[in-house]
């Protein structure tokens, strides 16, 4: 298979990126400064992330579109105002998550941002569930750039004036070099920030102008440590086909108004809402400096296996190892003592609240 390149590939090379293959794309894992400096720069100033590998699916056409999409997604799309975004899921009939995504209502339909590794399959699934009745465009002529961090609004406002008036989880059309760009206020780092959908041919000059205004390119490595500190899930690690949104502790993303209604996987979710779940995603803080990575087995104090870690790293801002994973529900209470099997040793750890890092917008606050 040919490895795809995003429109920023030359720019990644120019800024000294270490490139790796990710979901079929050649992507920057880090630049010259390294993961920790990139992570900290995003938290203290602002970071630019090339997320053009993600899918931008535009759906339009027909008065019944909102109704028909509600049969697929457990979001309250009827209440969604134009330019408002919601986090939701594409599920299978067993309530397992096929992808986690952001749905934004646009002037003529909906824009759905999909994970890179899932996007082609999502497209087919959604198209077939909609009985081919609507216009679906997985638009690869557009790049997607995320700008994240406390200075993101100031940097972006210099390049595209007026975007700082956007509210969180809202979007709007703006103009860059006489071309339309679509900007949402959202992100994946626990910081304030924006995602900018822009024509491939304009992406490079746009990113250069963000850099000229003080921002820096950040690789997938820091994107991963930032999202883990923010307690956010990575599809394929923390979410998969065998895990429901309730088990993933993402119940907040299923509005009460939809629980009694029908959508793909609704029966399983309704049942889980009523009777609870066997496993639950939790935050995990090891007592020592040992890092527990994905697939680390979790034990109780009687040496019985009770779950496994799905993501783990060293948190550069919290300056401590952090992890998340799934445990038997009876061990999911905060401060429950658990043990992580790392290199044959049982490492003591505690169940803890997510996120590990919580931004206080007046001054930074750390939550470990």
């Amino acid at each position, binding site marked *: 298979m040919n490895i795809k390149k995003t429109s920023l590939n030359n720019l990644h090379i120019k800024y000294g990126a270490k490139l790796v293959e990710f979901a079929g794309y050649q992507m920057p*894992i*880090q630049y010259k400064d*390294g*993961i*920790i*400096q990139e*992570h900290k720069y995003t938290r203290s100033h602002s970071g630019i992330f090339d997320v053009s590998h993600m899918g931008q699916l535009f759906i339009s056409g027909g008065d019944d579109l909102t109704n028909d999409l509600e049969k697929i997604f457990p979001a309250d799309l009827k209440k969604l105002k134009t330019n408002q975004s919601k986090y939701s899921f594409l599920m299978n009939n067993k309530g397992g998550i096929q992808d986690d995504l952001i749905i934004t209502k646009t002037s003529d339909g909906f824009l759905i941002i999909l994970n890179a590794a899932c996007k082609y399959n999502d497209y087919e699934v959604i198209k077939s569930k909609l009985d081919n009745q609507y216009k679906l465009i997985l638009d690869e002529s557009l790049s997607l750039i995320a700008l994240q961090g406390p200075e993101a609004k100031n940097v972006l406002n210099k390049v595209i004036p007026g975007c700082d008036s956007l509210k969180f989880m809202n979007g709007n059309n703006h103009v860059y070099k006489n071309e339309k760009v679509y900007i949402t206020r959202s992100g994946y780092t626990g910081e304030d920030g924006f995602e900018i959908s822009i024509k491939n041919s304009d992406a490079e000059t746009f990113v250069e102008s963000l850099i000229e205004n003080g921002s820096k390119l950040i690789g997938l*490595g820091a994107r*991963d*440590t930032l999202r883990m500190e923010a307690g956010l899930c990575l599809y394929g690690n923390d979410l998969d086909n065998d895990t429901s949104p309730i088990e993933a502790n993402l119940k907040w993303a299923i509005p009460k108004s939809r629980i009694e209604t029908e959508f793909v996987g609704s029966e399983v979710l309704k049942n889980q809402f009523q009777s609870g779940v066997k496993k639950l995603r939790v935050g995990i803080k090891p007592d020592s*400096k*040992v*890092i527990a*990575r994905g697939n680390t087995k979790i034990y109780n104090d009687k040496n019985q296996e009770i779950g496994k870690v799905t993501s783990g*790293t*060293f948190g*550069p801002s919290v300056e401590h*190892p952090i992890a998340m994973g799934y445990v038997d529900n009876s061990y999911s209470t905060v401060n429950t003592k658990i043990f992580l099997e790392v*290199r044959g040793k049982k490492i003591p750890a505690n169940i803890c609240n997510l996120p590990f890092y919580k931004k206080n917008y007046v001054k930074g606050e750390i939550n470990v």
Partner: protein
Amino acid sequence: MSEVKYSKEHEWIKLDGEEATIGITKHATEMLGDIVFAELPEKGSNVDKDGTAGVVESTKAASDVYTPVSGEVIDTNQMIVDDPSKINEDPEESAWFFKLKIKDKSEMDSLMSKEEYEKFAKETSA
């Protein structure tokens, strides 16, 4: 005169009499990225040539540290356990990993000189 040699697993070893000091090379730290965790062998334990004698972890992944020669661990560097970022800063001097009382000096013979290692590192990372 002390002798410094290098292994294919990117460790360096400096031999002073019977005392061997072992660490990882600058090239290794550049491949690993920011090091955030280090685990060292226990003082008094015996390690065998090419066996695991420690672990380093970057934000991304864990890697084993091997010992290029056999011997008894006589000292370990607590500084790098307390602050693993020192390994990135000064890998071939102050951020050594452990010291051994070498068992068999002839095990040094199969290791690479500085020039040989630099050539090896360049070829394997290309």
